[in-house]
């Protein structure tokens, strides 16, 4: 059995969907951020697979930018989590409904 691009795409899709499902069912904001990282990694894998198949380095460049954006996202997200949990210890995503009308 030879490993084609499709296998990498299926693995990337699997990681993306596991991450998305985790984002929907978990309530701990830290675990939700980790699930976002899982989704980003699934997409990165697809980009690298296409980059290799097409022989184009552009896909790897996009993965590089995704890494930078993920780092920025984690910094801001964890800042928000620290600010929220300092006010309201043990808060989950369901507790943050103050803006609900």
């Amino acid at each position: 059995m030879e490993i084609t691009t499709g296998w990498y795409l299926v693995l990337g899709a699997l990681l993306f969907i596991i991450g998305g499902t985790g984002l929907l069912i978990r309530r701990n904001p830290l675990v939700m951020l980790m699930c976002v990282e899982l989704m980003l990694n699934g997409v990165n894998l697809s980009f690298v697979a296409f980059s290799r198949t097409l022989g184009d380095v552009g896909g790897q460049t996009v993965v590089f930018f995704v890494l930078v954006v993920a780092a920025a996202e984690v910094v801001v997200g964890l800042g928000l989590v620290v600010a929220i949990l300092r006010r309201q210890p043990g808060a989950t995503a369901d507790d943050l409904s103050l803006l609900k009308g």
Partner: protein
Amino acid sequence: MVDTLIFIVAAVICVTGALGVVLARNPVHSALMLVMTLFGIAVQFVAQEAHFLAAVQVIVYAGAIVVLFLFVIMLLGVDRAQNLEMSFLPIQKWAALLFAAGSLTIVVALIIMVGEPVTGAEAMGGALGGTEDARLLARSLFSDYVYAFELTSLLLVIAVIGAVVLVRKPKVADAVTAGDGGDG
């Protein structure tokens, strides 16, 4: 044959880690499972001749982002096991599982249906091959994508300033409202 074996082992590691992130009760275990997934992805990158990205993946993700997660978990003291009764709305869990099954079916069906997804178009940013991926990546980054590269520096500065502003304790507001907590 070796390629197939490497792919299968790394894929199993990735998926096990991903399921661990979602299903672990303790956030520390989730973070460690995330490291497992990231190493599996790095192995897949090496298998596809993206050596530089594999190194960056390990350094940035496992070395910086996961450490940041663990640092915040320990700082906030939320490293106790949590009740895995996850959903607030009773329908939420089933809706999420339905979403997962449906989207997985659609995506896999599309990939199988399209079959060979390559169009045969010529590469624009320089052909890949061998062990020169770092040089090609740098050339692409500093020529075609140079404006995007400069914008990411702006993004990082904004993120750092935003994090400092978010986490700073508002001393003045505390004094005025007599320990009401300010606006965090």
